[in-house]
C-alpha cells in the first residue's frame, strides 16, 4: 500500500486536488480543532463535483458521538474515534483495498 501524506493545514480543495492527481483509492482525514462538520463533508462534496465520488473518505479525531451519524450521512465512510488502535485503522484500509 502506498501512502501519500499531504502535510498539515490543507484546505478541502488542496486535498481533493492531491487525491485526484495521485489517483488514490482512499483519503484519510484527521481533524482535532472541531471544524470537522464543515471540512469533512466539503471534501466529499468536492470529490463528487470532480466526478471522483468513488474515492473512499475516512475521518478521525476528536469527534463527538452525536456528530458521527451526520458525517456518515454526508458520505464519510468511517469515523475513527479516540482510542482506536493503529492496527484497526490499518486493517480497515487493507480490507477496503481488497474489496476494490
Amino acid at each position, binding site marked *: 500500500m502506498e501512502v501519500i*501524506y499531504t*502535510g*498539515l*493545514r490543507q*484546505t478541502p480543495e488542496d486535498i481533493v486536488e492531491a487525491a485526484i492527481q495521485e489517483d488514490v483509492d482512499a483519503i484519510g482525514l484527521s481533524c482535532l*480543532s*472541531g*471544524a470537522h*462538520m*464543515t*471540512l469533512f463533508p*466539503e471534501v466529499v462534496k468536492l470529490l463528487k463535483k470532480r466526478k471522483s465520488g468513488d474515492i473512499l473518505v475516512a475521518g478521525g479525531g*476528536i469527534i*463527538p*458521538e*452525536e456528530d458521527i451519524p451526520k458525517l456518515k450521512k454526508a458520505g464519510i465512510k468511517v469515523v475513527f*474515534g*479516540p*482510542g482506536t*488502535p*493503529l*492496527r484497526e485503522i490499518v486493517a480497515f484500509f487493507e480490507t477496503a483495498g481488497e474489496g476494490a
Partner: protein
Amino acid sequence: MRADEDRKALDKELKRWEETTLREALKSLPERRAEFLTTSSRPVKRLYTPLDLAGKTDEDRLGKPGEFPFTRGIHPTMYRGRLWTMRMFAGFGGAEDTNRRFKYLIGHGETGLSVAFDMPTLYGYDTDAPEAKGEFGTCGVAVSSLEDMKILFAGIDLRAVSTSMTINSPASAIWAMYLVAAEAQGAPLSSLRGTIQNDILKEYQAQKEWIFPPEPSMRLVVDTFEFGAKEVPLWNTISISGYHIREAGATAGQELAFTLANGMEYVRWGIDRGLKVDDFANRLSFFFNAHNDLFEEIAKYRAARRIWAREMRDTFGAKNPRSWLLRFHAQTAGVSLTAQQPEVNLVRTTVQALAAVLGGAQSLHTNAYDEAYQVPNEAAARLALRTQQILAHESGVPNTVDPLGGSYFLEALTDELEEEAYRYFDRIQGLGGVIPAIRKGFFQQEIANSAYRYQREIEDRERVIVGVNDFVVDEQPEFEVLRVSEASLKAQTARLNKIRRTRDSKKHAAALDRLRKACESDDNTMPFLLDAIRAKATLGEICDVMREVFGAYEEPLLY
C-alpha cells in the same frame, strides 16, 4: 577520605540488606514486573540511597532557595510569600464570548488571564479569510482587529491584571494590538504585565503553527525583545515552551533539553542583535508540561532551573541574578486527557498539578475534564480552577519551600535529567545548532519516535491508561457540549466589514506600506506594527504583508 569511608560503609550496609531482608522478601513476593518505567520509559530503581547522590555536595546540587543554582526555587520563601498565579487558559467564539468567560473565571478566583486564540488567528488569518472556514472560535477566540481586542478586555483593568497570550507566528502583531487596546484604556505601556508566547522554534519542532521561515521569524522575536526592554519593561516577551514539545509525544528529558536549547538560541540571537544579555534575559519566561509521572515531572522543573542558571551565568555571562532565574508557567498535560470516562481526567489533572506545585511553578493552568472533546464548558472550567484552590488552601503543600528537596530518588532523577539534557545539547551542536537541526528534522524525528513508542506501549498494554486499555466501561460520556454560536460568527464578520468600510483607507494603506518597508529593512518592526494597528489594519492584512516579504515555511517531511 571521610566521604570515601562513609561511602564504603553505606555500600556494605546496602549489600547486607539486599542479601538478607530483600532476598527473603522477594522469595515470598516477587515484584510485579521485571522493570519499572516512568511515563517517559526511564527505568526506575527499587531503592535510592545516598550512594546515588555521590559526586556532588548538597550545596552544589541544591544551594538555598532564591540562590544559585535555584534548584529549590527562584524565591527564598516560595509560596509562603505568594501563591502561584492561577491562570486559566480560555478562549472560544468571538471576543464577547471570551470576555464573559474571563469575567466568570475572575469571579471564581483566578488570579491571571490567559488567552487561547482560534486557529485562523494563530495562523494570521482574519475570520472571513477562505482559510478560516469552519474554524471560527472552535479552539480559542477569534481576534482579527483592534476592535476585537478591545472587546476581549472590556471592563477588565489592564493595569491591574497580568495577561498571557498564546500566540506565536503573529505574536508581535497581536502584542501590538494588545498594547494599543491598553493605551485606549489609559494604561501606560510601562504598567503592563503579561506574557506573549512568541516561541517560534518549538513550532517548527512540535506544534507546527509556523507561518514564515525560521530566520525572519527569529528576527521578529528579537524585535519584541528589543522593544519590550525599552518600552514595556514588565512584559515577558517570550515564553519558551516545552509544553507543546511534550504534547507532541516527547519524553520529559526531550522536553527539558529541547526547551532549554531553544532558550539559549534566543539568547544568542538577542546578543547578536547587539542587546546586552542582562537587558533582556530577565524577561525570558518558560512554559512546561505537567504530565502523569509525579517525580519525573518535579525533577524536570528542578533540573531546568539549575541548567538555566548555570548557562546564563557561566556561558552567557549574565551578571544580574534576575537573568539567571528560570521562571515558568505549567499546564497539566492535555495529551493525557482521555475521551473515555472523561470525569477521571479530574483526578489525573490533580496529580499533574501537584507536580507543578511541588516543582515550584510561578503560574499554573489546570485542564478541565471535558477538554479531550472541546474547549471546556463553564462548570468544567470552574472545577479545574477549584483543583488549584484545593492544592493552595487545603493540601498544605505550599507551606514549606521545596518539600521534596533531599529525597534520594528525586535528587538522583534531577541529576539524571540534567545529564540527559547536556547530551542532547551536544548532539544539537553537532548538527550545527537549533535551526540547522530543525531543517534536518532532528527534533521532529526524536519526538515522533517517542510518541510512537508510547502509543505502542499503550496498545500492547505494557502501560495501563485507566479507562483506555484497562478498567474500561461501555458507556457514553455525558457532559454539556459547547458549540460556537452562529450569531458570534455573524457579529464578528459584520464588525470586520464595518472596519474595512469606515476606516481612513489612505492612512491604512500608508501604514501597511511603511510596515512592508520595515520588514524589508533591518528596522525594528514593532513601532510600525503599532502604527498599522492604529490605522485599523487587521491581523490578516498585517500577516499578508509579512507573508509577501518573508515567504512561507515548508517543513521537511520525514519517513
